């Protein structure tokens, strides 16, 4: 039988338990909403403007750099699994692969994209 079935069961039970807990809390708790209670929390002061703040583009850069490295490292896993049975050629190959990406990191660094401005 497909082993992922069991993982699927974990997903299902992992959903049921928190839903059950939250549903229980929902049933047991009081429900007395009022406008002040429902208003957005801003340290006790009336909320100003909308809850939507413009962000630094910096976050996006980090997410991009992350994406590239994420894909790279995922590529390396099959290599690492097989490494024990392979010769020097495969090792050098993986090292070249990593070095090319480190070059990318160095480039990003030199261009000042990793600075938090």
């Amino acid at each position, binding site marked *: *039988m497909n*082993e*992922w*079935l*069991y*993982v699927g*069961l*974990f997903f299902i*039970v*992992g*959903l049921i*338990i*928190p839903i059950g807990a*939250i549903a*229980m*809390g*929902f049933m*047991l*708790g*009081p429900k007395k909403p009022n406008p002040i*209670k*429902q*208003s*957005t*929390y*801003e*340290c006790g002061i009336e909320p100003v403007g*909308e*809850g*939507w*703040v413009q*962000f630094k583009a910096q*976050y996006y850069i*980090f*997410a991009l750099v*992350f994406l590239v*490295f*994420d894909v790279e*490292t995922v590529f*390396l*896993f099959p290599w*690492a*699994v*097989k*490494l*024990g049975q392979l*010769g*020097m050629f495969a*090792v050098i190959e*993986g*090292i070249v692969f*990593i*070095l090319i*990406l*480190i070059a990318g*990191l160095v480039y990003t*660094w030199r261009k000042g994209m*990793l*600075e*938090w401005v």
Partner: protein
Amino acid sequence: MNFWNDPLKVAADWLMGIFTSWGMNDVAAHVLVAFLGVLLLITILMVIDIFLVWIERKVVSRFQDRIGPNRVGPFGLIQPFADIIKLMIKEDTTPDGADKVVYNIAPILSMMSVLILWAVVPLAPVMLGVDLNIGVLFIIAAGSIGTLSIIMAGWSSNNKFSVIGAFRCVAVMVSFEIPMLATLLIPTIFTGSMGMNAIIQGQNIWYVFLSPLAALIFLIAAIAELGRAPFDLAEGESELVSGYNIEYSGMKFGMFYAGELLHAFTFGGFWAIMFFGGYRFFGLEQISPFLAIAIILFKALVGYWIIMWVKYTVMRIRIDQMLAFNWKFLTPVAFVLVMVTALMNALLRDAGNWLYITGMILSNIIVAWASLEIVRLVSKKERERVEGLKQVVEAHH
């Protein structure tokens, strides 16, 4: 087949017998038994989770020279139950302008992303969970779902603090995923498999002795991934009040909180599996599966204790410092370590056992020393530059 040697199999066979005698077909009975097994494991985890609240509070109070909960029950053991009842009977508020569906899904996903991690945890030689051959990557995949739940919580609350908190938290989590992935490559290289059980079986010598630096980097990345101090700037009480979960109340907040504690405990467990031999301890695990479970839970608790120790000792750092620390120090060091480990592994594989271990440790020490030396030189230069600037400014005055 003795119950004490293989309790799960005995119980499963017994249940299978009952279900099939009810006229259920084999596959359905099998799935039902598996479902009950998963339900049992997760229920036990939730009970452990309740006690983790108590452990965390007791440990933090000891670190801070207090006694901690001691009124309700012996040693305050009933305290977490009182907390849970309080969370249950709290009003479940939804702020105005919140995106209701997303707002309600987020805490559920957050808890789920932690619970599914236990699918791949081998508890004992006969209780392997699901022995996936990509177990290591499964941790990261579950973490991705956790990241998503945080951004959902932050965005849907329609609150400035929660959006800022979520953004910071996600930036931290995704950044530190890279060194974590890189250090996970190292047990994979040693073992030649990504399966959790294979990694444990491969540890005739704990991998922490082969690659202490990898263990350290994994711990740091795990702490960041958990969003705990010193990397808890998503919460930053003094600036963001509570971060992404600020608008949540009652059991929904409870899910985030319980999820965080269980997550920390789980990563203590993964640390033990990757670098400290998991359920193995000088052959003790062969005596009884219950002993093996006790060993892995104990190791997980030790890992959890270390995570708490760091949390309550080190101060929170700024987000720019943290991202710089990750991208300019941890990531390069982790990748250099992967390269060195791969190279040493290929060179020393056929050499004797002792030579292999010595070579590995030495290469780790050299990488650590060289990287610290580089950091020292760079920071010295930086200090001199700042000093120079100061002198210029002073001369100007």
